[in-house]
């Protein structure tokens, strides 16, 4: 189970927390003051009050030890930059996702050590553009992959010694065997880039590669179990 620390009282924090299921994620909201913490607790989330500028308090909540992901969702970019720098200094491996208000702050956040920058206005603009120019695709993806339908997109890493090792992508036949579609492969041994599987030369799979598949949740889970079961099928 991933432990996520959420900083910043905003609509985005609640949207993100609401979408992360308690079975897979342990969420902790870090409030600036007790009133904020009380409001978050009233919504059913765990909350603590800390001063994010204090490294000891950051260590106290588990950054550097058991926090896997940090959401920096303060409304001020400067607060997010400061928190990112502090968290990165405490933990080199923690995944930091930060929100950006002014687009000029994005490179600063990346320089501070953030892994992913979220610009809500940019996303909204792109979404509107998609809806305008490709309404069918936007609609389908919203309702299936990003919606509440059972259709999902998933990534599956090939472990050492898995039966998929050295197999070619055209031999997989996920479409008929698992009711899944293989969308792309990340070749970790080559260039760590996404290679889309749309005909052409088939790729040879190696352990460490990541498969990006699309399909019903149950089928993804079943296939994931098969892949992660080291040894022959």
């Amino acid at each position, binding site marked *: 189970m991933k432990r*996520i620390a959420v900083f910043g009282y*905003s*609509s985005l924090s*609640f*949207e*993100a927390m609401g*979408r*992360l299921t308690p079975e*897979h*994620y342990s969420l902790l909201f870090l409030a600036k003051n007790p009133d904020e913490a009380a409001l978050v607790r009233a919504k059913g989330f765990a909350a603590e009050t800390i001063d994010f500028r204090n490294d000891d308090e950051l260590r106290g909540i588990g950054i550097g030890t058991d926090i896997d992901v940090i959401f920096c969702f303060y409304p001020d970019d400067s607060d997010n930059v400061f928190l990112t720098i502090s968290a990165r200094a405490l933990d080199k491996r923690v*995944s930091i*996702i930060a*929100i950006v208000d002014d*687009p000029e702050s994005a490179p600063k956040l990346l320089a501070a050590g953030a892994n*992913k920058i*979220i610009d*809500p*206005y*940019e*996303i*909204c*603009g*792109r*979404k*509107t*553009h*998609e*809806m*305008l*120019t*490709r*309404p*069918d*695709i936007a*609609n*389908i*993806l919203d*309702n*299936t992959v*990003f919606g509440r339908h*059972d*259709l999902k*997109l*998933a*990534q599956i890493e090939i472990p050492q010694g898995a039966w998929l090792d050295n197999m070619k992508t055209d031999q997989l036949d996920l479409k008929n065997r698992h009711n*899944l*579609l293989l*969308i*792309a492969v*990340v070749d970790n041994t080559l260039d760590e880039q*996404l290679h*889309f*599987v*749309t*005909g052409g030369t088939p790729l040879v799979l190696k352990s460490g590669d*990541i498969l*990006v598949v*699309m*399909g*019903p949740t149950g089928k993804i889970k079943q296939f994931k179990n098969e892949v992660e079961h080291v040894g022959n099928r």
Partner: protein
Amino acid sequence: MLTRLIIHIAYSLQLSPTYQRGKRFFHNLLENPNSVIKPYFDVFMICLVLFNVFLLIRELNTPLTEAELLFEDVLVSVFITEYLLRVWLYRDAHKIILEDYEKATYLGISFSLVQAIKRIITTKLEYMLSPLALIDLLAILPGYRPLRMYRMLQMFRLFKLFRYFNSIKLFSEILASKRFDLYTLATFLGILVFIGSTAIYMFEFPAQNGHIKNLFDAFYFSVVTVATVGYGDISPQTHGGRIVTMALIMSGLGVLSFFVSIIVSAFNDKMTVLRENRVYTEISRYSNFVIICGFGRVGQHIAAQLQKDKLQFVIIDADPTAILFAKQSGYLAIQADASKNQVLCNAGINAGATAVLCTTGNDVINVYITLTSRHLNPSIRIISRVNREENAQKFYQAGANNIIQPFEIAGMVVAEYVGQPVAFEAILGIIREEQQCVMETLCVQADSMLDGQVLGGIDFDQRKLLLIGVISENSLHSRHKNRYTIKNQHFYFNPPDYFELQHGDLLMVMGRDYSIEHFRGLIEKSRLTLRRKR
């Protein structure tokens, strides 16, 4: 009998598409500032006028040749034709007859043809007495042989240039708009010149050894001095005359400054309207475009994307800073309140716009714009930004087709990213067309190679495409598995090989853009071939 015949002709003209088309053509040629052909006609007429001026100057020293005289006759014929066409275009005579006739029929009184003709003559005279029409007439008159001696009248042909230069028209409009200020200035100037002329005459009268011989000289001297020109042909000789001259010069400076400030301020006022008109003219040339209401961060991103796609759009925002930024970015922008009916009408909501995007950061304004847009155009597509989740339903009630919630989408992005960063980046890359692969829909058109075809018969691998699914409203497919209901459609994910396509279905495919385009081309080609065979 004659009345009946005229009414019949009037009705025929009203219903005749040829007549209407002809009138529209000449209106576009001569009057419509937004038409494509008018600029060409204007340039042609400018060339004719300039050539005529050349002949006029030449005639002063050398008699004109036969060819040149013939050209002048042709020129006058063109001017006469243009003049008559303009008189014809000014209000429809047949409409006046029909208006009077229908009014008389409705009231049960007898129709008077004489009255109708009188109205037509009054209307046409209204035009003929307008300054530009008078210039046109005066430009034609020297073409009449007995009037040739009045060569000065040919100068009016030069004034015809006023018609063809928009900037001159604008200047006369500006003068007209500042009529009151200019009258005030003219009155002051008149009094000043009157006082100056009288005073200078009194001081510089020949009896006083001055150069002013009569009142006209005094008036001429005053005007030249007030205008700060000072030719020097007449100069004051007495102390009194010099004092008057100095006073006239100082007052003249004031008058000139006042005149310049009036013109400059009028230009400033007019420029905003002029720029707006230019935007509206540009919009009127668009056929399919998007109206973006609000040029904040979201609006800016949308505009950049649409620009990238080479799609046409216009921005409306009440904030002058936002509009300035939009214009600096090279976009078509109007500074106005988008919730006003007139603003949206001027922006073309009923004249070529295909969608309205409400992207301001204020839900109240967005709802109002949505409602106004839906009221003005019941069929236009409206996509609205919703900033607070609790307001989402209100937008649908106001008439939005789709809503966008920035923080909901951002929250979803974060949640997806935490769980599946690679997968999520992949799908985002495809959607944003940042990767080599794109996702597109291909329509199964009636009579194309896909209509009635089973999926197993289409080799997607060979075409370097990946079929994600089929979007369909057709109930024939309802027996298939992997069916996801989306609004009034169904999405069939990974459909089996025996899935038979029906026209109207949409194939959702992934692949390189040129693979998709190639396949699209094949479908279109097959449709045309099958049609030809039938």
